[in-house]
Protein backbone atom coordinates (compact mmCIF):
# COMPACT_ATOMS: atom_id res chain seq x y z
CA UNK A 1 0.00 0.00 0.00
CA UNK A 2 2.57 2.56 1.12
CA UNK A 3 6.07 2.17 -0.22
CA UNK A 4 8.98 4.31 0.87
CA UNK A 5 12.02 3.81 -1.31
CA UNK A 6 15.50 5.10 -0.40
CA UNK A 7 14.12 8.32 0.91
CA UNK A 8 16.44 11.10 1.92
CA UNK A 9 15.86 14.46 3.46
CA UNK A 10 18.55 17.04 3.80
CA UNK A 11 18.43 20.53 5.22
CA UNK A 12 20.71 23.40 4.42
CA UNK A 13 22.56 24.76 7.38
CA UNK A 14 25.15 27.33 8.20
CA UNK A 15 25.53 30.83 6.86
CA UNK A 16 24.18 31.15 3.34
CA UNK A 17 23.09 27.53 3.49
CA UNK A 18 26.47 26.13 2.61
CA UNK A 19 26.33 23.18 4.98
CA UNK A 20 24.08 20.20 4.68
CA UNK A 21 22.37 18.22 7.40
CA UNK A 22 21.15 14.81 6.36
CA UNK A 23 18.14 14.19 8.54
CA UNK A 24 16.94 11.06 6.81
CA UNK A 25 19.17 8.77 4.85
CA UNK A 26 18.20 5.99 2.46
CA UNK A 27 15.15 4.85 4.35
CA UNK A 28 13.02 2.16 2.73
CA UNK A 29 10.02 0.34 4.12
CA UNK A 30 6.42 -0.55 3.36
CA UNK A 31 3.11 -0.55 5.22
CA UNK A 32 0.32 -2.95 4.28
CA UNK A 33 -3.38 -2.70 5.07
CA UNK A 34 -4.36 -3.90 8.54
CA UNK A 35 -0.80 -3.63 9.75
CA UNK A 36 0.75 -1.41 12.41
CA UNK A 37 4.37 -0.60 11.72
CA UNK A 38 6.36 1.07 14.51
CA UNK A 39 9.06 3.53 13.72
CA UNK A 40 11.13 3.76 16.87
CA UNK A 41 13.84 6.34 17.39
CA UNK A 42 15.19 8.82 19.85
CA UNK A 43 15.17 12.56 19.32
CA UNK A 44 17.09 13.61 16.26
CA UNK A 45 16.60 10.25 14.60
CA UNK A 46 14.47 11.76 11.85
CA UNK A 47 11.33 9.79 12.63
CA UNK A 48 9.03 12.80 12.62
CA UNK A 49 10.59 13.98 9.39
CA UNK A 50 9.68 10.70 7.75
CA UNK A 51 6.11 11.06 8.96
CA UNK A 52 5.94 14.56 7.57
CA UNK A 53 7.35 13.47 4.24
CA UNK A 54 4.65 10.84 3.96
CA UNK A 55 2.04 13.47 4.77
CA UNK A 56 3.52 15.80 2.19
CA UNK A 57 4.18 18.46 4.83
CA UNK A 58 7.86 18.41 4.03
CA UNK A 59 9.29 17.77 0.59
CA UNK A 60 11.49 14.76 -0.05
CA UNK A 61 15.02 15.52 -1.15
CA UNK A 62 15.74 12.20 -2.82
CA UNK A 63 14.03 8.88 -3.22
CA UNK A 64 10.36 8.20 -3.70
CA UNK A 65 7.24 7.61 -1.70
CA UNK A 66 4.46 5.84 -3.48
CA UNK A 67 0.93 5.07 -2.42
CA UNK A 68 -0.82 2.32 -4.38
CA UNK A 69 1.92 2.73 -6.91
CA UNK A 70 1.43 6.46 -7.45
CA UNK A 71 4.30 8.77 -6.64
CA UNK A 72 3.09 11.34 -4.13
CA UNK A 73 5.77 13.94 -4.63
CA UNK A 74 4.28 15.24 -7.85
CA UNK A 75 0.78 15.55 -6.52
CA UNK A 76 -0.93 18.86 -6.15
CA UNK A 77 -4.39 20.32 -6.25
CA UNK A 78 -7.06 17.69 -6.66
CA UNK A 79 -4.74 14.71 -6.68
CA UNK A 80 -3.28 15.86 -3.38
CA UNK A 81 -6.74 16.20 -1.93
CA UNK A 82 -7.53 12.67 -3.00
CA UNK A 83 -4.36 11.52 -1.34
CA UNK A 84 -5.42 13.15 1.90
CA UNK A 85 -8.65 11.26 1.57
CA UNK A 86 -6.61 8.08 1.92
CA UNK A 87 -3.78 9.14 4.21
CA UNK A 88 -4.07 11.28 7.33
CA UNK A 89 -2.00 12.15 10.36
CA UNK A 90 -2.34 12.73 14.08
CA UNK A 91 0.39 14.58 15.93
CA UNK A 92 2.00 14.69 19.31
CA UNK A 93 0.57 17.68 21.08
CA UNK A 94 -3.22 17.61 21.25
CA UNK A 95 -3.45 21.17 22.48
CA UNK A 96 -1.29 22.50 19.70
CA UNK A 97 -3.27 20.59 17.08
CA UNK A 98 -6.36 22.66 17.64
CA UNK A 99 -6.64 26.32 16.83
CA UNK A 100 -7.40 27.73 20.29
CA UNK A 101 -9.78 30.40 19.08
CA UNK A 102 -12.19 27.97 17.46
CA UNK A 103 -14.34 25.27 18.95
CA UNK A 104 -12.94 21.78 18.78
CA UNK A 105 -15.43 20.89 16.03
CA UNK A 106 -13.55 23.26 13.74
CA UNK A 107 -11.29 20.40 12.67
CA UNK A 108 -14.37 18.63 11.40
CA UNK A 109 -15.93 21.61 9.68
CA UNK A 110 -12.70 22.14 7.76
CA UNK A 111 -13.09 18.68 6.34
CA UNK A 112 -16.72 19.21 5.61
CA UNK A 113 -16.00 22.22 3.46
CA UNK A 114 -13.30 20.47 1.53
CA UNK A 115 -14.65 16.96 1.18
CA UNK A 116 -18.31 16.80 2.07
CA UNK A 117 -19.70 20.03 0.72
CA UNK A 118 -22.53 18.23 -0.96
CA UNK A 119 -23.95 16.66 2.15
CA UNK A 120 -26.97 18.08 3.87
CA UNK A 121 -26.71 19.07 7.52
CA UNK A 122 -28.61 16.03 8.65
CA UNK A 123 -26.40 13.66 6.70
CA UNK A 124 -23.29 15.37 7.96
CA UNK A 125 -24.39 15.17 11.58
CA UNK A 126 -25.09 11.47 11.26
CA UNK A 127 -21.68 10.85 9.74
CA UNK A 128 -20.01 12.91 12.43
CA UNK A 129 -21.77 11.13 15.25
CA UNK A 130 -20.85 7.75 13.86
CA UNK A 131 -17.17 8.67 13.70
CA UNK A 132 -17.18 9.98 17.24
CA UNK A 133 -18.89 6.89 18.54
CA UNK A 134 -16.35 4.74 16.74
CA UNK A 135 -13.70 6.32 18.96
CA UNK A 136 -15.85 5.98 22.08
CA UNK A 137 -16.68 9.63 22.42
CA UNK A 138 -20.07 11.08 23.18
CA UNK A 139 -20.82 13.75 20.53
CA UNK A 140 -22.70 15.86 23.04
CA UNK A 141 -19.68 15.93 25.34
CA UNK A 142 -17.15 17.18 22.89
CA UNK A 143 -18.60 18.96 19.91
CA UNK A 144 -19.57 22.26 21.36
CA UNK A 145 -16.57 22.77 23.54
CA UNK A 146 -13.34 24.64 23.12
CA UNK A 147 -10.08 22.69 23.06
CA UNK A 148 -8.90 23.86 26.45
CA UNK A 149 -12.07 22.51 28.01
CA UNK A 150 -11.35 18.97 26.85
CA UNK A 151 -8.70 16.54 27.95
CA UNK A 152 -5.70 15.44 25.91
CA UNK A 153 -7.18 12.00 25.45
CA UNK A 154 -10.45 13.34 24.13
CA UNK A 155 -8.67 15.67 21.75
CA UNK A 156 -6.50 12.93 20.33
CA UNK A 157 -9.48 10.69 19.86
CA UNK A 158 -11.31 13.44 18.05
CA UNK A 159 -8.38 13.73 15.70
CA UNK A 160 -8.56 10.02 15.01
CA UNK A 161 -12.31 10.37 14.45
CA UNK A 162 -11.56 13.17 12.02
CA UNK A 163 -9.22 10.90 10.08
CA UNK A 164 -11.82 8.16 10.07
CA UNK A 165 -14.41 10.47 8.55
CA UNK A 166 -12.47 10.32 5.36
CA UNK A 167 -12.29 6.53 5.43
CA UNK A 168 -8.55 6.62 5.23
CA UNK A 169 -6.43 3.61 4.64
CA UNK A 170 -3.22 4.78 6.29
CA UNK A 171 -2.79 6.74 9.49
CA UNK A 172 0.51 8.38 10.39
CA UNK A 173 0.50 8.52 14.19
CA UNK A 174 3.39 10.72 15.31
CA UNK A 175 3.95 10.27 19.06
CA UNK A 176 0.23 10.56 19.53
CA UNK A 177 0.13 9.38 23.11
CA UNK A 178 3.34 10.64 24.62
CA UNK A 179 1.57 13.69 26.03
CA UNK A 180 -1.30 11.75 27.52
CA UNK A 181 -1.61 10.38 31.00
CA UNK A 182 -0.78 6.74 31.54
CA UNK A 183 -4.36 5.73 32.16
CA UNK A 184 -5.65 7.25 28.91
CA UNK A 185 -2.72 6.13 26.80
CA UNK A 186 -3.74 2.57 26.74
CA UNK A 187 -7.28 3.42 25.64
CA UNK A 188 -6.09 5.35 22.61
CA UNK A 189 -3.64 2.58 21.84
CA UNK A 190 -6.37 -0.03 22.03
CA UNK A 191 -8.41 2.10 19.68
CA UNK A 192 -5.64 1.86 17.14
CA UNK A 193 -5.62 -1.88 17.64
CA UNK A 194 -9.34 -2.08 16.94
CA UNK A 195 -9.02 0.03 13.83
CA UNK A 196 -6.15 -2.07 12.63
CA UNK A 197 -8.45 -5.05 12.91
CA UNK A 198 -10.77 -3.32 10.47
CA UNK A 199 -8.14 -2.89 7.82
CA UNK A 200 -6.47 0.39 8.67
CA UNK A 201 -2.72 0.57 8.19
CA UNK A 202 -0.85 2.59 10.79
CA UNK A 203 2.64 4.02 10.88
CA UNK A 204 3.21 4.35 14.60
CA UNK A 205 6.06 6.74 15.29
CA UNK A 206 7.30 6.67 18.85
CA UNK A 207 10.32 6.75 21.13
CA UNK A 208 8.72 4.36 23.59
CA UNK A 209 9.67 0.79 22.92
CA UNK A 210 7.08 -0.79 25.16
CA UNK A 211 4.29 0.90 23.24
CA UNK A 212 5.74 -0.14 19.93
CA UNK A 213 6.06 -3.67 21.17
CA UNK A 214 2.48 -3.68 22.43
CA UNK A 215 0.72 -2.58 19.32
CA UNK A 216 2.74 -3.26 16.21
CA UNK A 217 3.31 -6.18 13.88
CA UNK A 218 6.54 -4.86 12.45
CA UNK A 219 9.15 -2.58 13.95
CA UNK A 220 11.88 -0.36 12.58
CA UNK A 221 14.64 1.08 14.73
CA UNK A 222 15.86 4.41 13.46
CA UNK A 223 19.14 5.98 14.40
CA UNK A 224 20.39 9.31 13.08
CA UNK A 225 18.31 9.05 9.98
CA UNK A 226 18.91 5.45 8.97
CA UNK A 227 17.20 2.20 9.79
CA UNK A 228 19.53 -0.03 11.78
CA UNK A 229 17.21 -2.93 12.40
CA UNK A 230 13.78 -3.90 11.17
CA UNK A 231 11.44 -6.82 10.95
CA UNK A 232 8.65 -8.60 12.75
CA UNK A 233 8.21 -7.09 16.21
CA UNK A 234 8.75 -10.27 18.16
CA UNK A 235 11.95 -10.94 16.25
CA UNK A 236 13.39 -7.47 16.72
CA UNK A 237 12.56 -7.41 20.43
CA UNK A 238 13.17 -11.06 21.09
CA UNK A 239 16.44 -11.31 19.25
CA UNK A 240 17.96 -7.85 18.91
CA UNK A 241 21.18 -7.91 16.95
CA UNK A 242 22.25 -4.34 16.36
CA UNK A 243 24.14 -2.82 19.33
CA UNK A 244 21.93 0.25 19.20
CA UNK A 245 18.77 -1.83 19.46
CA UNK A 246 20.22 -3.76 22.35
CA UNK A 247 21.15 -0.54 24.07
CA UNK A 248 17.65 0.88 23.63
CA UNK A 249 16.04 -2.24 24.99
CA UNK A 250 18.40 -2.20 27.94
CA UNK A 251 17.41 1.42 28.75
CA UNK A 252 13.69 0.86 29.01
CA UNK A 253 12.62 0.90 32.65
CA UNK A 254 10.72 -2.27 33.48
CA UNK A 255 8.23 -2.80 36.23
CA UNK A 256 9.47 -6.15 37.35
CA UNK A 257 13.10 -6.33 36.44
CA UNK A 258 15.92 -4.05 37.38
CA UNK A 259 18.07 -2.42 34.74
CA UNK A 260 21.19 -4.38 35.61
CA UNK A 261 19.43 -7.62 34.96
CA UNK A 262 18.10 -6.54 31.59
CA UNK A 263 21.46 -5.19 30.58
CA UNK A 264 23.02 -8.54 31.30
CA UNK A 265 20.30 -10.35 29.41
CA UNK A 266 20.61 -8.19 26.37
CA UNK A 267 24.33 -7.61 26.53
CA UNK A 268 24.70 -3.87 26.15
CA UNK A 269 26.13 -0.96 28.07
CA UNK A 270 23.98 2.09 28.27
CA UNK A 271 26.33 4.41 30.10
CA UNK A 272 29.10 3.87 27.60
CA UNK A 273 26.79 4.59 24.74
CA UNK A 274 25.51 7.81 26.26
CA UNK A 275 28.99 9.08 27.01
CA UNK A 276 30.19 8.17 23.55
CA UNK A 277 27.28 9.96 21.90
CA UNK A 278 28.14 13.16 23.66
CA UNK A 279 31.82 13.28 22.94
CA UNK A 280 31.27 12.90 19.23
CA UNK A 281 29.44 16.13 18.47
CA UNK A 282 29.40 15.86 14.75
CA UNK A 283 26.64 13.77 13.26
CA UNK A 284 27.83 11.16 10.83
CA UNK A 285 28.60 12.88 7.62
CA UNK A 286 27.34 12.07 4.23
CA UNK A 287 30.33 10.15 3.02
CA UNK A 288 29.86 7.62 5.74
CA UNK A 289 27.07 5.95 3.87
CA UNK A 290 24.30 4.06 5.55
CA UNK A 291 25.09 0.40 5.91
CA UNK A 292 22.71 -1.70 3.88
CA UNK A 293 20.26 -3.96 5.68
CA UNK A 294 21.09 -7.65 5.60
CA UNK A 295 18.57 -10.32 6.21
CA UNK A 296 19.52 -12.43 9.22
CA UNK A 297 16.42 -14.55 9.44
CA UNK A 298 12.90 -14.62 8.06
CA UNK A 299 11.50 -11.09 8.34
CA UNK A 300 14.41 -9.69 10.31
CA UNK A 301 17.01 -7.30 8.83
CA UNK A 302 19.98 -5.65 10.45
CA UNK A 303 22.40 -3.00 9.21
CA UNK A 304 25.66 -4.48 10.38
Amino acid at each position, binding site marked *: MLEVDTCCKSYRTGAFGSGELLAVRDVSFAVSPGEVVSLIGESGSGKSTIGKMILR*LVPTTRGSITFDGLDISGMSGRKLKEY*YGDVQGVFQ*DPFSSYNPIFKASHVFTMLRKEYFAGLSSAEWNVKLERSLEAVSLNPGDVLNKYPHQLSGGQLQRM*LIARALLLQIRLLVADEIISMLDASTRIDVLNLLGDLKGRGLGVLFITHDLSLGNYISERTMILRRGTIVEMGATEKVFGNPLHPYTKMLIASVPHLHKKWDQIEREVGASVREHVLREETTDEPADEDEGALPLRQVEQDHYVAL
Partner: protein
Amino acid sequence: MAVSKPGTGVVTAAGAPAPAEATAPISPQGAPAAAPVGARRSEFLYFALRNWKFVAGLGVVLFLFALAIFGPMLTPYEPLEFSGPTDQAPSSDYWFGTTSFGQDVFSQFVHGLRATFLVGLVGGGIAWLIGATVGFTAGYRSGWLDDVLNMITNVVLVIPTLAILIIVAAYVNVHSYLTEAILVGLTSWPWAARAVRAQTFSLKTREFVDIARISGRRTRQIIAKEIAPNMSSYLLMMFILLFGGAILIGASLDFLGLGPSESMSLGLMMNNAFLSSALLLGSWWWFIPPGVGIIGIVGGLYVMNVGLDEIFNPKLREM
Protein backbone atom coordinates in the same frame (compact mmCIF):
# COMPACT_ATOMS: atom_id res chain seq x y z
CA MET B 1 -4.89 17.60 30.78
CA ALA B 2 -1.55 17.23 29.00
CA VAL B 3 1.36 16.02 31.02
CA SER B 4 4.00 18.42 29.92
CA LYS B 5 2.37 21.82 29.89
CA PRO B 6 3.30 24.16 32.71
CA GLY B 7 0.36 25.66 34.51
CA THR B 8 -0.19 29.39 34.79
CA GLY B 9 -0.71 29.72 38.48
CA VAL B 10 -3.16 32.56 38.88
CA VAL B 11 -6.17 31.80 36.82
CA THR B 12 -8.28 34.33 35.09
CA ALA B 13 -11.56 33.27 33.61
CA ALA B 14 -9.78 32.67 30.35
CA GLY B 15 -12.90 32.49 28.29
CA ALA B 16 -14.30 29.23 29.65
CA PRO B 17 -18.07 29.47 29.52
CA ALA B 18 -18.54 26.21 31.41
CA PRO B 19 -16.93 26.56 34.83
CA ALA B 20 -17.62 22.97 35.76
CA GLU B 21 -14.81 21.78 33.54
CA ALA B 22 -12.03 23.36 35.55
CA THR B 23 -9.43 20.83 36.51
CA ALA B 24 -5.96 21.56 37.81
CA PRO B 25 -3.38 22.34 36.59
CA ILE B 26 -5.23 25.33 35.31
CA SER B 27 -5.72 26.07 31.63
CA PRO B 28 -2.37 26.12 29.88
CA GLN B 29 -3.24 29.13 27.75
CA GLY B 30 -1.69 32.35 28.84
CA ALA B 31 -0.96 34.05 25.55
CA PRO B 32 -3.08 37.00 24.36
CA ALA B 33 -5.03 35.33 21.62
CA ALA B 34 -5.85 32.11 23.39
CA ALA B 35 -9.44 32.63 24.50
CA PRO B 36 -12.29 31.55 22.23
CA VAL B 37 -14.29 34.14 20.35
CA GLY B 38 -17.72 34.19 21.91
CA ALA B 39 -16.66 34.30 25.51
CA ARG B 40 -13.76 36.46 24.56
CA ARG B 41 -15.99 39.37 23.61
CA SER B 42 -17.78 39.51 26.90
CA GLU B 43 -14.58 38.88 28.79
CA PHE B 44 -12.98 41.65 26.76
CA LEU B 45 -15.68 44.13 27.67
CA TYR B 46 -15.46 43.17 31.30
CA PHE B 47 -11.78 43.87 31.50
CA ALA B 48 -11.84 46.72 29.02
CA LEU B 49 -14.21 48.84 30.99
CA ARG B 50 -12.19 48.34 34.12
CA ASN B 51 -8.89 49.36 32.61
CA TRP B 52 -8.49 53.08 33.11
CA LYS B 53 -5.73 53.41 30.55
CA PHE B 54 -7.89 51.99 27.83
CA VAL B 55 -10.93 53.98 28.84
CA ALA B 56 -9.07 57.24 29.25
CA GLY B 57 -7.12 56.89 26.01
CA LEU B 58 -10.18 55.88 24.06
CA GLY B 59 -12.13 58.70 25.61
CA VAL B 60 -9.68 61.34 24.53
CA VAL B 61 -9.41 59.98 21.01
CA LEU B 62 -13.16 59.65 20.60
CA PHE B 63 -13.71 63.15 21.92
CA LEU B 64 -11.27 64.63 19.45
CA PHE B 65 -12.75 62.49 16.70
CA ALA B 66 -16.21 63.78 17.47
CA LEU B 67 -14.80 67.26 17.42
CA ALA B 68 -13.30 66.57 14.02
CA ILE B 69 -16.61 65.42 12.65
CA PHE B 70 -18.98 67.86 14.23
CA GLY B 71 -16.66 70.75 14.98
CA PRO B 72 -16.77 72.34 11.53
CA MET B 73 -20.53 72.56 11.87
CA LEU B 74 -20.17 74.54 15.05
CA THR B 75 -18.19 77.33 13.56
CA PRO B 76 -19.55 79.86 11.08
CA TYR B 77 -16.12 80.66 9.72
CA GLU B 78 -14.02 78.91 7.14
CA PRO B 79 -10.52 78.02 8.25
CA LEU B 80 -8.71 80.10 5.68
CA GLU B 81 -11.22 82.92 5.61
CA PHE B 82 -9.89 86.22 6.71
CA SER B 83 -12.85 86.70 8.91
CA GLY B 84 -11.83 88.90 11.73
CA PRO B 85 -9.34 91.09 13.47
CA THR B 86 -5.81 89.79 13.67
CA ASP B 87 -4.06 88.35 16.72
CA GLN B 88 -7.09 88.29 18.93
CA ALA B 89 -7.08 86.28 22.12
CA PRO B 90 -9.93 83.80 22.60
CA SER B 91 -13.31 85.46 22.96
CA SER B 92 -16.93 84.59 22.61
CA ASP B 93 -16.83 85.34 18.88
CA TYR B 94 -13.64 83.53 18.21
CA TRP B 95 -13.38 80.69 20.71
CA PHE B 96 -9.76 80.03 20.05
CA GLY B 97 -8.90 83.55 18.98
CA THR B 98 -7.54 84.55 15.58
CA THR B 99 -4.28 84.19 13.74
CA SER B 100 -2.12 87.05 12.65
CA PHE B 101 -3.97 86.93 9.36
CA GLY B 102 -7.32 87.24 11.01
CA GLN B 103 -8.37 83.62 10.58
CA ASP B 104 -10.45 81.82 13.17
CA VAL B 105 -8.20 79.45 15.06
CA PHE B 106 -11.03 77.23 16.27
CA SER B 107 -12.19 76.66 12.74
CA GLN B 108 -8.67 75.86 11.69
CA PHE B 109 -8.36 73.54 14.63
CA VAL B 110 -11.43 71.44 13.90
CA HIS B 111 -10.71 71.27 10.19
CA GLY B 112 -7.17 70.43 11.01
CA LEU B 113 -8.37 67.59 13.19
CA ARG B 114 -10.23 66.20 10.21
CA ALA B 115 -7.17 66.27 8.03
CA THR B 116 -5.04 64.77 10.77
CA PHE B 117 -7.44 61.92 11.32
CA LEU B 118 -7.62 61.31 7.60
CA VAL B 119 -3.87 61.04 7.30
CA GLY B 120 -3.75 58.78 10.33
CA LEU B 121 -6.48 56.43 9.20
CA VAL B 122 -5.57 56.21 5.54
CA GLY B 123 -1.81 56.30 6.05
CA GLY B 124 -1.97 53.91 8.96
CA GLY B 125 -4.40 51.71 7.11
CA ILE B 126 -2.22 51.43 4.02
CA ALA B 127 0.84 50.71 6.11
CA TRP B 128 -1.13 48.08 8.00
CA LEU B 129 -2.30 46.38 4.83
CA ILE B 130 1.12 46.29 3.25
CA GLY B 131 2.84 45.29 6.48
CA ALA B 132 0.39 42.49 7.19
CA THR B 133 0.48 41.12 3.65
CA VAL B 134 4.24 41.18 3.41
CA GLY B 135 4.62 39.82 6.92
CA PHE B 136 2.20 36.93 6.52
CA THR B 137 3.57 35.93 3.15
CA ALA B 138 7.20 36.08 4.22
CA GLY B 139 6.50 34.31 7.48
CA TYR B 140 4.38 31.54 6.07
CA ARG B 141 6.21 30.77 2.90
CA SER B 142 9.86 30.57 3.78
CA GLY B 143 12.45 30.12 1.12
CA TRP B 144 13.30 32.53 -1.63
CA LEU B 145 10.08 34.50 -1.33
CA ASP B 146 10.87 35.17 2.28
CA ASP B 147 14.39 36.24 1.37
CA VAL B 148 13.17 38.65 -1.30
CA LEU B 149 10.49 40.19 0.87
CA ASN B 150 12.94 40.46 3.71
CA MET B 151 15.35 42.34 1.53
CA ILE B 152 12.66 44.75 0.39
CA THR B 153 11.54 45.27 3.95
CA ASN B 154 15.03 45.95 5.16
CA VAL B 155 15.68 48.42 2.37
CA VAL B 156 12.52 50.38 3.04
CA LEU B 157 13.23 50.21 6.75
CA VAL B 158 16.69 51.63 6.42
CA ILE B 159 15.82 54.45 4.05
CA PRO B 160 15.50 57.66 6.08
CA THR B 161 11.78 57.98 5.65
CA LEU B 162 11.44 61.61 6.45
CA ALA B 163 14.19 62.55 4.06
CA ILE B 164 12.55 60.62 1.25
CA LEU B 165 9.19 62.07 2.02
CA ILE B 166 10.61 65.54 2.02
CA ILE B 167 12.19 65.01 -1.35
CA VAL B 168 9.12 63.38 -2.80
CA ALA B 169 6.84 65.98 -1.34
CA ALA B 170 8.96 68.74 -2.76
CA TYR B 171 8.75 67.28 -6.24
CA VAL B 172 5.37 65.64 -6.33
CA ASN B 173 3.62 68.75 -5.14
CA VAL B 174 1.24 67.22 -2.71
CA HIS B 175 -2.19 68.66 -3.32
CA SER B 176 -4.37 66.79 -0.96
CA TYR B 177 -4.10 65.08 2.38
CA LEU B 178 -5.05 61.87 0.69
CA THR B 179 -1.86 61.94 -1.32
CA GLU B 180 0.12 62.70 1.79
CA ALA B 181 -1.58 59.85 3.56
CA ILE B 182 -0.67 57.45 0.79
CA LEU B 183 2.93 58.55 0.81
CA VAL B 184 3.16 58.13 4.56
CA GLY B 185 1.55 54.72 4.34
CA LEU B 186 3.94 53.51 1.70
CA THR B 187 6.96 54.21 3.84
CA SER B 188 6.00 53.28 7.36
CA TRP B 189 5.09 49.59 7.01
CA PRO B 190 8.45 47.77 7.46
CA TRP B 191 8.47 47.32 11.23
CA ALA B 192 4.93 46.01 11.07
CA ALA B 193 5.92 43.52 8.39
CA ARG B 194 8.78 42.27 10.51
CA ALA B 195 6.61 41.87 13.56
CA VAL B 196 3.91 40.00 11.67
CA ARG B 197 6.50 37.81 10.03
CA ALA B 198 7.99 36.81 13.36
CA GLN B 199 4.61 35.97 14.81
CA THR B 200 3.61 34.03 11.74
CA PHE B 201 6.82 32.01 11.97
CA SER B 202 6.00 30.88 15.42
CA LEU B 203 2.35 30.16 14.67
CA LYS B 204 3.28 28.26 11.55
CA THR B 205 5.06 25.63 13.55
CA ARG B 206 1.98 24.89 15.60
CA GLU B 207 0.39 21.66 14.71
CA PHE B 208 -3.01 23.07 13.90
CA VAL B 209 -1.49 24.55 10.77
CA ASP B 210 -0.34 21.06 9.77
CA ILE B 211 -3.84 19.77 10.40
CA ALA B 212 -5.25 22.49 8.19
CA ARG B 213 -2.78 21.55 5.48
CA ILE B 214 -3.68 17.90 5.53
CA SER B 215 -7.33 18.90 5.42
CA GLY B 216 -6.71 20.25 1.98
CA ARG B 217 -6.69 23.93 2.90
CA ARG B 218 -4.66 26.22 0.69
CA THR B 219 -2.10 28.73 1.83
CA ARG B 220 -4.23 31.84 1.54
CA GLN B 221 -7.05 30.25 3.47
CA ILE B 222 -4.72 29.08 6.17
CA ILE B 223 -3.25 32.53 6.65
CA ALA B 224 -6.61 34.26 6.61
CA LYS B 225 -8.61 31.79 8.66
CA GLU B 226 -6.16 30.10 10.96
CA ILE B 227 -3.19 32.34 11.54
CA ALA B 228 -4.51 35.88 11.34
CA PRO B 229 -7.41 35.35 13.76
CA ASN B 230 -4.93 34.01 16.29
CA MET B 231 -3.08 37.29 16.11
CA SER B 232 -6.14 39.51 16.09
CA SER B 233 -5.26 41.39 19.23
CA TYR B 234 -1.76 41.90 17.97
CA LEU B 235 -3.00 43.16 14.62
CA LEU B 236 -5.35 45.59 16.32
CA MET B 237 -2.63 47.04 18.46
CA MET B 238 -0.36 47.24 15.47
CA PHE B 239 -2.95 49.26 13.62
CA ILE B 240 -3.23 51.68 16.47
CA LEU B 241 0.50 52.20 16.53
CA LEU B 242 0.60 52.72 12.78
CA PHE B 243 -2.29 55.15 13.05
CA GLY B 244 -0.45 57.22 15.63
CA GLY B 245 2.79 57.00 13.73
CA ALA B 246 1.20 58.18 10.51
CA ILE B 247 -0.24 61.20 12.24
CA LEU B 248 3.14 62.13 13.62
CA ILE B 249 4.87 61.79 10.29
CA GLY B 250 2.13 63.71 8.56
CA ALA B 251 2.29 66.45 11.14
CA SER B 252 6.05 66.64 10.75
CA LEU B 253 5.72 67.02 7.02
CA ASP B 254 3.08 69.70 7.44
CA PHE B 255 5.16 71.49 10.00
CA LEU B 256 8.02 71.62 7.53
CA GLY B 257 5.67 73.15 5.05
CA LEU B 258 5.74 70.19 2.72
CA GLY B 259 2.13 69.24 3.13
CA PRO B 260 -0.82 70.48 1.14
CA SER B 261 -1.39 74.16 1.58
CA GLU B 262 -4.90 74.46 0.26
CA SER B 263 -6.55 73.21 3.37
CA MET B 264 -5.61 73.13 6.99
CA SER B 265 -4.04 70.57 9.25
CA LEU B 266 -2.70 70.72 12.77
CA GLY B 267 0.86 70.54 11.57
CA LEU B 268 0.30 73.31 9.11
CA MET B 269 -1.19 75.42 11.85
CA MET B 270 1.91 75.02 13.89
CA ASN B 271 4.01 75.84 10.87
CA ASN B 272 2.12 79.02 10.26
CA ALA B 273 2.25 79.95 13.91
CA PHE B 274 5.96 79.41 14.00
CA LEU B 275 6.59 81.37 10.83
CA SER B 276 4.51 84.24 12.12
CA SER B 277 6.48 84.33 15.34
CA ALA B 278 3.41 83.55 17.36
CA LEU B 279 5.60 82.55 20.26
CA LEU B 280 7.28 85.91 20.39
CA LEU B 281 4.03 87.73 19.96
CA GLY B 282 2.49 85.78 22.75
CA SER B 283 -0.34 84.38 20.62
CA TRP B 284 -0.44 81.17 22.59
CA TRP B 285 -3.94 80.37 21.36
CA TRP B 286 -2.53 79.74 17.91
CA PHE B 287 -0.01 77.00 18.56
CA ILE B 288 -1.16 75.45 21.77
CA PRO B 289 -4.44 73.95 20.46
CA PRO B 290 -2.82 72.13 17.52
CA GLY B 291 0.01 70.91 19.74
CA VAL B 292 -2.42 69.68 22.34
CA GLY B 293 -4.50 68.15 19.59
CA ILE B 294 -1.64 66.11 18.20
CA ILE B 295 -0.45 65.08 21.63
CA GLY B 296 -3.99 64.23 22.59
CA ILE B 297 -4.65 61.96 19.65
CA VAL B 298 -1.30 60.24 19.53
CA GLY B 299 -0.88 60.08 23.28
CA GLY B 300 -4.40 58.83 23.72
CA LEU B 301 -3.82 56.13 21.14
CA TYR B 302 -0.64 54.92 22.78
CA VAL B 303 -2.14 54.86 26.25
CA MET B 304 -5.10 52.97 24.83
CA ASN B 305 -2.67 50.49 23.37
CA VAL B 306 -0.97 49.89 26.68
CA GLY B 307 -4.38 49.29 28.18
CA LEU B 308 -5.26 46.89 25.37
CA ASP B 309 -2.11 44.94 26.01
CA GLU B 310 -3.14 44.46 29.61
CA ILE B 311 -6.65 43.47 28.60
CA PHE B 312 -5.55 40.90 26.07
CA ASN B 313 -2.75 39.40 28.06
CA PRO B 314 -4.04 37.83 31.23
CA LYS B 315 -0.58 37.71 32.72
CA LEU B 316 -0.30 41.50 32.78
CA ARG B 317 -3.58 42.09 34.50
CA GLU B 318 -3.42 43.24 38.06
CA MET B 319 -5.25 40.74 40.17
